């Protein structure tokens, strides 16, 4: 069944609030960026200029894309100058069509009360190999463990699930997978679940 025709059919009934019309899309330029978040993003842009890219500024969330060579420097700046003191979450996202794997750090702050609502999203990308040999291929990123101690287990998880080797991480061992796992890193898109 095609989902498009279903949509039209359902939308005519009365008790449905179509999601697409509720959030009326306003033109990009008219959206006023939240002030505090804009100020933070400006500080980072002021320091690093074109070496980083501010992907979005929303309420309580800022996302910054960084190249893999600059990620440590930017993270140090975020910790020392902007007071982000821990990583809430580190996620990998596989983009086979771009031949890249993205690693996304969600940073937060316990010590600075003005930042307690904020999550700063720091994203960087590693080169992706078609036939991965985890640890021994070009899929490598600098580890942020020296800067944010809290990423230690998160980075270990990404190493086994995506095959991204973190250079400078003291303990690049398996964490969740069995010791003798010999298949592809399972969260890559080309690792398929049986029957799906």
């Amino acid at each position: 069944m095609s989902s498009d025709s279903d949509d039209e059919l359902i939308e005519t009934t009365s008790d449905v609030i179509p999601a697409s019309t509720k959030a009326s899309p306003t033109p990009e330029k008219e959206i006023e960026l939240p002030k505090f978040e804009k100020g933070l993003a400006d500080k980072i842009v002021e320091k690093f200029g074109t070496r980083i890219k501010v992907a979005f500024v929303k309420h309580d969330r800022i996302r910054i894309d960084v190249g893999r060579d600059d990620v440590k420097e930017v993270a140090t700046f975020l910790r020392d100058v902007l007071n982000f003191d821990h990583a809430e979450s580190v996620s990998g996202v596989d983009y086979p069509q771009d031949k890249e794997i993205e690693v996304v750090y969600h940073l937060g702050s316990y010590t600075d009360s003005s930042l307690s609502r904020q999550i700063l999203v720091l994203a960087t990308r590693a080169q992706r190999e078609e036939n991965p040999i985890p640890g021994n291929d070009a899929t490598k990123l600098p580890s942020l463990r020296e800067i944010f101690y809290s990423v230690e287990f998160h980075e270990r998880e990404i190493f086994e699930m995506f095959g991204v080797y973190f250079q400078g991480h003291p303990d690049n061992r398996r964490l969740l997978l069995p010791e003798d796992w010999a298949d592809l890193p399972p969260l890559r898109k080309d690792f398929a679940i049986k029957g799906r």
Partner: protein
Amino acid sequence: MNNELPPGLALQKVDERIMTLNVGPQHPGSGHMRIIVQIDGDFIVACDPDPGYVHRGEEKMAEYRNYITNIPHLERPVIHDSCNILYPYVLGVEELLGIEVPERAKYIRVIASELNRCVYTMYWLAIYGIFLGHSTMFMWPAGDRELLIDLLEKMTGARVTHAHFVPGGVRNDLPPNFEDVCLRQVNYFEKRIKEYAAIFYDNPILIARTANTGVLSRQDAIRLGTTGSVLRASGVDYDLRKKEPYDVYDELDVHSNVMKEGDSYARSKIPWLDMLESCNIIRQALQKMPKSGSVRVKLKPNPKGKGLDSVYKRVESGRGSLGCYIVSDGKPEPYRLKLSVGSFRNLIALPYLLKGEKLGNMPAVYWSLNYWPVEADR
């Protein structure tokens, strides 16, 4: 080290003085996870937590199911706290799809999530009791949590796996007369758990066992990125219900419990204080909740996001901040879903806390981290 073998199977160098001991992975000593400890006599010199025995690949499964069919399996990592583990996911999907939730549904969610927090904490407390050899403390919470399970069963239809939160509200409205029953049960529950102070928290044996063991300083709690009761037991006042209120928490008077000691005793007491606070929140929510109205926005079949988008939402669960990162590429299934759970984040403190501790204190320290192995493994 033998490089031929995979890392976990490699032969270890044997030291005559240091003994390596595998604790787990059987329940209940370590709870489906293994802790490899190296002991020198009675003292732990190194500890290497080895989770993963209950890894279910929730994140991978989520990429194959649409936003609605993801609901029942995503609560499986921690079924005692199923409303709270679904909460950030549901909030995230709502932001992706641009759904506004009815007011009454928001209150129902708060009530369900606070009841669930108590149900989880009671189970955790029961196991903490048995870990310390206090069998009454196993029986009492295990029995008293039935009160709240009954309430949740009336509310959602299931005893533990509720799957009650859906994008756009909650699955069902409250049954008739629920408010009165809920108020009565919660008042009785509060009276019951206050009695735990006399048998457990003021018990000199418990205090001797847990006070000053596994002390986590404020600075280290922040540096290690711990969360929830572990963080608040070390003197950091950070409760997401207050710091980043979601749904209607900003309309309720929430008090976050903080202790300064940072030892196992403080970490075991904070969840209990949180349960008393949950009772207050439930009473407030019952009072302020709109008496009627819609509880769910109906969605189109196969709802999907608008192009490439990502969202990170977090809530305060029974084990601390629970974050959900959803990447959408405009299809009905999430492109990537990541759960950042409190258990996983608190685990990093374990090797740190156990170093130099006596082996006998290991259960007291380990379980005080409010760690749920299945949730950490996802």
